[in-house]
């Protein structure tokens, strides 16, 4: 199939970006979206032009490195997948595809479609851990945990930190990411001693880094490749309120 791409090109964090039009011809519909970009990039290299920069690593939807906004949707039109799992059969011959970076003040563009997501790491550093030294790993099931809690904690732990929730949010808020990280530890017994310090630290850091404020639009859940639920945001709000009186 033949496609028209409108790709955001930006040389560096402090330069102005613009959309550049490319033609991607003879693309197999078995190709992944990234393989399609690889083909376009090869042609650019042959012509002596700069490749389109984009970040990726595992290309199987587990690392959280990739991510771009495709026709207005982070990770593209299919729900529940990362950009690297998107395939060209999703598009039609002759389609025009707009490709933009995740846009948020707290996640500035490094180059083209690559954004700096270290602000999300700072949120983790502010409490997304358990600091008790517990020695070797225990036997499985040594600490009994209700099935409902362990399932919920696992759902929250599925977050791969890609930042699509921030990209999708009309407020550029990182509440879905932060709430997933807060809940995944806060639901388990090991996470209890630091539960309120954690939520406070992580929310404060989130705000200091310049993310926006959640107004419960729900776009984050719809964009999330791991389909993390906004229920975790309610949980975070509840924990944060309790932390205010501790």
């Amino acid at each position: 199939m033949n496609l028209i791409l409108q790709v955001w090109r930006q040389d560096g964090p402090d330069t102005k970006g613009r959309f550049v039009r490319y033609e991607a011809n003879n693309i197999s519909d078995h190709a992944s979206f990234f393989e399609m970009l690889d083909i376009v990039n090869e042609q650019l290299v042959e012509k002596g032009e700069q490749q389109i920069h984009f970040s990726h690593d595992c290309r199987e939807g587990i690392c959280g490195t990739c991510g771009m906004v495709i026709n207005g949707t982070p990770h593209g039109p299919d729900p529940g997948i990362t950009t690297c799992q998107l395939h060209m059969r999703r598009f039609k011959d002759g389609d025009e595809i707009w490709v933009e970076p995740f846009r948020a003040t707290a996640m500035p563009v490094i180059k083209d479609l690559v954004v700096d997501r270290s602000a999300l790491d700072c949120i983790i550093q502010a409490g997304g851990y358990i600091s008790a030294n517990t020695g070797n790993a225990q036997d499985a099931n040594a600490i009994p945990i209700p099935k409902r809690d362990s399932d919920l904690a696992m759902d929250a732990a599925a977050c791969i930190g890609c930042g699509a929730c921030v990209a999708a949010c009309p407020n550029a808020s990182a509440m879905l990411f932060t709430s997933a990280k807060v809940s995944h530890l806060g639901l388990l017994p090991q996470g209890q001693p630091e539960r309120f310090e954690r939520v406070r630290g992580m929310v404060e850091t989130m705000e200091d880094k310049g993310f926006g404020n959640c107004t419960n639009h729900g776009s984050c859940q719809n964009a999330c490749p791991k389909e993390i639920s906004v229920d975790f945001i309610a949980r975070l709000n509840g924990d944060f309120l309790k932390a205010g009186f501790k």
Partner: protein
Amino acid sequence: MRSVFSLYRSSVGKKIVMAISGIFLFLWIVGHMLGNLKVFFGQEAFDHYAHGLKELGDPFLLHGQFLWIIRFVMLAIIVLHMWSALSVYLQSRAARRLGYRKTDDLTFTYASRTMRWGGVILLVYIVYHLLHFTVGSAHPQFVPGAAYANLVIGFRNWWVSGFYIVAMLALGLHLYHGLWSACQTLNFNNPMLRDLRRPVALLITLFIVLGFCSVPISVLAGIVTLP
């Protein structure tokens, strides 16, 4: 102290202020709507009700005092509500300076996207409404104390009734998202009841919007008239 301060400083804390003030405004709206329905029981019943509002608190408080206390409390609540809305709006606006060329709407409901403009419409409406039926300066034939007659004459004007109805639709959108959103903000998220939040918010919203709109519609339809 540090913890309470962090509550105040953070947007999560401001949302809690917004949700609690919103719930008070909502409760007040319910009372106001139910009171308005007295208009269907005739001039005497309605004027008696309007007059009775001023006598609330009797004999502890003098004529009209309780109403003034309520007015000040309501004003304070609205100011808190708007302050939190404005400060989280400014924070969110700074969080994305350069927007997308293409945007696909991924939000759960249309109502959530109307909150900010809807809030401004409500504010304009509230000011007009007070000038219209409370102060009387925006009313063509206002007679202090003659609540029923003021209402019927006011609503006989199609433009005025139309604006009231539009404002109530804006209120409906605001409440439909607001009630659900306040549940999220206050962690009212019990797995057994969670899925009821949307339908219940919708039912309450319909109840309120229909209740308010029934009054101007009945005046225009000639059901509620001057004797």
